Structures are given as structure tokens and as C-alpha cells.
């Protein structure tokens, strides 16, 4: 066991668990943040995507021992009131079906918008490699294209244009 200190959604956390424990299971089992999902455990599906020090990563591949001093943001911390531009668009455009993969989709998409606020269609296709078995891809793509068209500086507002 190793004691690790890091931050999750702005809150300081201290954890004493096996150093190999993936961040995914740290979040789910130890911290009770179950919005981050287990889908494959091998970084294929992206359901476990979180932001680690500002980057979208697959948390099933991040062992606890590497988290010392890290800053983690999960779906629960993406916005304070569920009003991130993507969360609003996801609801407005009826993107989710079962919803299981959508936290990972949203965190991946939000990561893309951070690095590229107005992504091209090709950037969207390349960045969103998450698996959705329900087949929400057409709507994920449509919602992200809408987000990509947001004029600069609109922050969290949804454009209805």
C-alpha cells in the first residue's frame, strides 16, 4: 500500500491503496465517483476517459502510483451544474441512448474543445475514438459540429443558430 495525495474535481484526496490500482477503480470504488465507467480495461473503448492535468486520458491505464500531485477532473466535475456547452448540446440533440459510454464521450469531446475550440470534421472524427454500441455516433458528431461552430468567447452558452 502507498499513500498518494492528488486532487479530484478540485478537492484534495489522500488514498492508501495498492500502487497498481488504476485511476478508474480509484475513482469508482475508493472515491465513489461512479460516473467514470469501466468498459474494457485496455484503453480501447474510452468509457473511462477523464482529464488528467488538463488532458483527456483513459483512466484504466493510469495507476495510482503515478498520480502524486495530479489534478483529475471527472464527468462529475466537468461543470458545476451540468451546464457545459457539450452537456447542454447532448441533451438538446438527444445524443445518448443507454448513456453508459457518454461520460467518456463527453470527457473526450471536452478535451478536444480545450485544445481545439473549433475542430474540423476530421479532427472530430480522429479525436472521438470511443466505442458506443448503441450507435450514437451520428449524433455525437452532429453535436460536436454544433459546438465547433460556437463563436469565440461564448463560454458555456449554447448557440441555437
Amino acid at each position: 500500500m502507498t499513500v498518494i495525495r492528488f486532487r479530484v474535481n478540485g478537492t484534495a484526496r489522500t488514498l492508501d491503496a495498492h500502487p497498481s490500482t488504476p485511476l478508474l477503480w480509484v475513482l469508482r470504488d475508493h472515491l465513489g465517483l461512479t460516473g467514470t465507467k469501466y468498459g474494457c480495461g485496455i484503453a480501447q473503448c474510452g468509457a473511462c476517459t477523464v482529464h488528467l492535468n488538463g488532458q483527456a486520458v483513459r483512466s484504466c491505464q493510469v495507476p495510482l502510483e503515478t498520480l502524486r500531485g495530479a489534478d483529475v477532473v471527472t464527468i462529475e466535475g466537468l461543470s458545476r451544474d451540468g451546464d457545459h456547452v457539450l452537456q447542454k448540446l447532448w441533451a438538446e440533440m438527444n445524443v445518448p441512448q443507454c448513456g453508459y459510454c457518454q461520460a467518456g464521450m463527453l470527457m473526450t469531446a471536452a478535451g478536444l474543445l480545450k485544445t481545439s475550440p473549433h475542430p474540423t470534421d476530421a479532427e472530430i472524427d480522429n479525436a472521438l475514438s470511443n466505442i458506443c454500441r448503441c450507435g450514437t455516433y451520428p449524433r455525437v458528431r452532429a453535436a460536436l459540429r454544433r459546438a465547433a461552430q460556437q463563436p469565440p468567447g461564448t463560454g458555456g452558452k449554447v448557440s441555437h443558430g
Partner: protein
Amino acid sequence: MADTAPDTAMGAALSLSRRAFLLSVSATAGGMALGIMPPAASGADGAGAEFSAWVVIGRDDTVIIRVPTPEIGNGAMTQVAMNVTEELACAWSRVRVEFGAIHRDYLEKGVYSAGFLPFFAGHGTDRQRMKRALQLGASARERLKVAAATRWKAAAADIDAQDGVLTHKPTGRRLRYGQVAAEAARVELAVEPTLKPESDWTFLGKASPAKLNTPDIVTGRLVFGIDVRQPGMVHAALRQPPVHGGKVKSVDADAVRGMPGVRAVVIIDPANTKGAPIRPKATFTLGDTTAQWGVAVIADHYWQAKMALDALPVDWDANPAAAAFATVEHIRAAVDARLDKAEGRVLRKAGDVAATSGARVVDGVYATPYCENAAMEPLNATALVTADGAEVWCPTQDQQQAYWVVIDETGLPPESVKLHQTFVGGGFGRRTQADDVRMAVAVAKAYPGVPVKTIWSREECFRQGRYRTPITSRFRAVLDDGTGLPAAVEAEACFTGSRPTFHLTMGFDDVPYFTSGIVPNVLIRSSAQPVHVLNGAWRGPCYNSHAFIVETFIDECAHAAGADPLDYRLRLVNTWDQSWSDCLRTAARHAGWGRQLPRGEGLGIAISGWPQAAVHAMGTIVCTVAHVAVSPAGEIRVKKIDVAFDCGRVANRDAVAAQLEGGTLFGLNAALQEELTLVDGAVVEANFDQYPMLRLADTPPIDIHFDALSGHSRMDIVGEAPVGPVSAAVGNAIFSAIGKRVRGTPFSRHDLRWI
């Protein structure tokens, strides 16, 4: 680590067994006291006034609608709430939805299932179920009116109900629903109100609200089965025999005894299934849900359980029945030999196929492989088994099935079993049988008094599937020398798998081509090849294969006759429902059927119907046109898909479109790249690195067209139907593009190079 188990709740014998480390026998005794009191049948339940098991209205005007249908992503839960809302005339913004409980249904003698099975899959627009939901809404609305009338000393007939507000029309006085809910819940109506005519609907068919659970999805708050947390809960990782039907020979539990957090190793022996004390009312019966042998490690956290299970030495006895079927090629050889005999059971016979002759004969064998449902939420359930009862939280597709599986596995009387439906992270048929629930209960009953969450790893899900039933079919047609249409069709479908529940013929012998009389001579048979690999339900069970096979075969007939595939199909369905012709024409028109395309590109068309094709104005008919490009190197790219359909009418247009998009992609993935294989009788593919899934970048534009809707009064189910035709449409487009005929999926395994 502190033991948080409520030991005091258990008998001494159970505490003793808890101290054991290697657990192989269920410690649950039979003949227990009943543990669950029936909830109050009516009246306030703390949060609000309960009008029925379905409807609760709070003082703050919140309307809770309890729905017994699961929410698997198709919006069924929201649809049922919409149905109630239409008649209740409450404000949609105040509607909350919860899952009705199957144990309450049992205790209160069918409060959620009166007149129909409400649990399976969740067809929110089924005629009977819809009528019942509308009636529940109407009944609550009238009781609210009576309560307001009593308070105002007015006539109920003078009261209008709208958007959650009761208005006394003569005086304009108003009350909100919440203000009279408590009184209204005590009102008994002498006569049930008549439903308003559908032409007066203001919500159904008019609005397309998002699913009520969408806000919780996008914030990560939605509780799927895998997210359930109970006080003192521990976690289990499970492994079943690599070769289905195998047994545990030996386990070296001491090897993991000292690993962090590990509490116990459980051996699951199917002989420990107790059996239901009364005749089970499981939706699908229990025959396909029997426990498999297995080992599980229980630990404080899942990662600990998984690490220990990975380190646990287990010897398996292979299933001797698997020896003959080491690979899928062995199975295919047995299937081919069976088809060569042509001794299958006759499903349909007309005229005399043997006496039919013609110059042009079309003859082919078509096949689909094993596929895994691969719902994104891995299989799991949380179970607490005590001396007094069992409580289970699970993401099932069918509460009724899961409930009786728990009863059967524990031997407990139904009144002492509680089942909690959670949200479901995809089902696609895999969660209909509740074998997943049974295994979790089998683990938990060996560790009584503590809630145990059992998670199947992704690898376990892949290797312990209840897979798509592979179907291999031989089709032979003799074409009429004059018209080119089939004068005779002879066919046999051979189902691979020992489970006859999933030897379904929808989309095979019931297509209008073979039932309408347009083909005068028909002989259709089915047979089955038993194997050890377990088959089950996979979105649009068996239909998904039949539709591919029949529509590929018909396409071959069209080309053999020198006819345009669209025109040929139109002639074949000419004497059948207009709907089929309309769907064909609509999809073709939108796709630009008949236009010139560059070399290596082609359009393909296919049509099928689920769950009924041979009954007039029933089921959902889907026609799919695919635009496909095949590179000279043989790589397939689907450029565009157009879908036309007829399910009668739609209640929620956007929800229907989402289902058609998703079903099309589900079928497309199987068509292009899904196939499980065997080595030494065990499934090889274990995760998405070996079993590819379409990603966003691979997804073509999919246009769903509503202009073939007939407007017939039914609102039939739309989740399964689109899975059928897309594979044939893509295969037929490949033929159109490069002249190579693909008679089996996945197409990615075919050599499609054309230079």
C-alpha cells in the same frame, strides 16, 4: 480491514460459514421466515400521495410515474411516462420516472403486469400496454377533479385539468394537482373514465422530448447496475470455464489468500442451485439460465478481486461435447453435412418444387458467425442473500425473468426476494435471460449477509456470451423462364447451437416473397446443429441473420434474371402490403437509385420486417439502401445509408430516429467486422482489440426517412427491424460495385481486391 457484515442478522451456522475461506456450498438454509412486508397499497408514502402503484403526486406537483419497463437506451421508460402524461394532463417538466418493482407486482398480484407482461425489453408503444398507461393517467386525472370538486362543492364535470392545474370553469378558481393530491388519492371512482380519442392527443405523436434520464447521463449521476453501492458491499471477480460446459477440477485458493483485500474464494457448482419453491413464471422459462461452473474471488475492492482472480490457479475439466468442435470450421463442416442431407423440419410448403424446371437456377449457401452482444456496461449484479431473503440490484432487460432466476437460485419463496431494476448500459438481448444475475446470486449466497457486487470483466463477457445464433442456409431458386421471378424456392436454415429458444424463423419463412403466393412453389425447412457453445438472443434474434441471407439470395435472383434489384423486389411484393413497396421506393428515391457511380462504387438495397412479416399491417418494415465504395485493395467504405420504414405511426419521432440509426449501425458493424472464433473449443476473442467496433470515423451519414410511414394505427417496435436489412444492403452494394458476391459475414474477411 474492518468486517462490516451485519453478522447479528444471521444465524450461527451462517456466521461459521463466513469464516471459511474457500466456499463451495451454499450456506443458505431453506424454509425461512418471510422478509418483505407488502408496501401500502395506497395513500401517502412520505414523498407524495400514491394514486396507484404507477402514479404518485407530491405536494410540490411532482408527478412520479413508476414504470415496470427497463430503460436500455431505447427510451421505453420515458415513453411509458409520456403515455401516462397524455391522459393525466400534468406538466411534463414535473414528471419524474422510477422503476416499478417486480416483487411488488408479485405481492400485489399483478399491479404492474395486469393483462400483459410489462417487463420484457420494454415496448412502450405496445397497444395493450399503452392503453393501460393511458387509463392510469385518465383515472388519476378524474380523481383529482373529484377531489377539487369536493373542496369547491362543485361538479367534477365543470373542472378542467391541464398542465397540472385544475380549473373550475364557471368561476375560474384554480388548484394545482399537488394541492389536492392527498385527497384525490383516496377517491374511488365508480366508473373508469373513457380515454380521449387519439385525435385529441396533444403530446403523443406531437412532441419529441429527450429521455427523462438524459440530464443524469450527461452529468454522470445515472446509476447503472455496475454503479450500485450498498453499505458494507464487497466485490467479486468471476471466471467460468473457458470451454462452455466445463467444470472446475481444482482451485488453489491458498495461492491468493494473502493478497490485499481478498476475503474468500468461491467455487460455483450448478448442483447448488436450490430450485424455485413454486412453479416459476419466468418470461423465457429457466432452461437457458442454468448456472455454469465457476470460480470467484471476493475482495474489498474490484481491482483486488480481479488481481487475485488473475493469480488464482484453476484447473478445468473440459466439456467432452466440445471435442468435436475445436474450431468454427469443425462446426461449419458439421452444418454443411447436415444441410447436404436436406432432412430438416418442414416450415412451409406450397406447390411442388421438385417438379419445377427452368433454364436459370440460383443456388447458394449463406452464413453468419457467432457474434457477441458487447453491451458497453459489462455484465454485473449486486446481491445480498441472508437467512431471511435476498435482495438484488441488476441492470436486467427483464425484471420478471431476473426475479424468478433469483428465486430459483436461492430456493427462497418469492415474497422474500426483492429485485431492484437499475438503468441498463445496453442489452441487445444479452440481459434478457438473467444468467448473469444467477451467477452473481450464486456468488453472493456463498457469502451471506454481505452485499456482493459481481462484475464480469470484459474478457469474461466475451468468452461467456450467449451469442448470436449462427445460421447457415442453403437457398435454391428456379426462375420462371418468362418473368424471371422465382417459380420455385427451396431452402433450409441450419441453426448452430443447442438452445432452441433461439432457433427463430422470423425473417426466414415468413417473408412475403414466400407467403404471398407470388412464388408458387415453396419448400422451406429448418434444422439445428447442437454444439457446446452457448447461443442466445442478439438484437433481432435470428432475424438479423435471415434478413441478410434472404435479401442476398433475392438479389442474386434479380441479377440472374437480368433485372434491376429494386424493380425485381417491387414485382415480388406487388401482391403484398403497399407498405413494402413504399419503403422500397422511398429508400431508393432518397438514395438516388439508378444513378451512375464511379468504378468501385455501388448501391445495394434490402428490405425486411420484424417481428412479423407475413401478417398484414403488423411489425416494422425497414428498407435500407447502402452506398458503398470498395478500393482496388479491397477495403470497404460505406459512404451513405438511407433508411425508409413503416411501423404504422410514431409516438416520439426523434426517439424512433435514434433507434433506427443505432440499429442500422449495430447491423453494419456485424456485416463488416464481427466474428468470434474458437480454439480448442474456447472462444478466442476477449476484448475490443480482437473484436473491432465501428468508431465515429467509420460511421457513414445515415438518413432516416419518415415518408414511407403508412399512418396505420399501430406504433410498432423499431429497435430490431433495422438490424436486418443493412448487412444485405451493404453486401449487395459490394456486388454492384465490383461484381463479387459475399454470402457470409463479416465482409472484411473476404478478398475484395479488384485490380
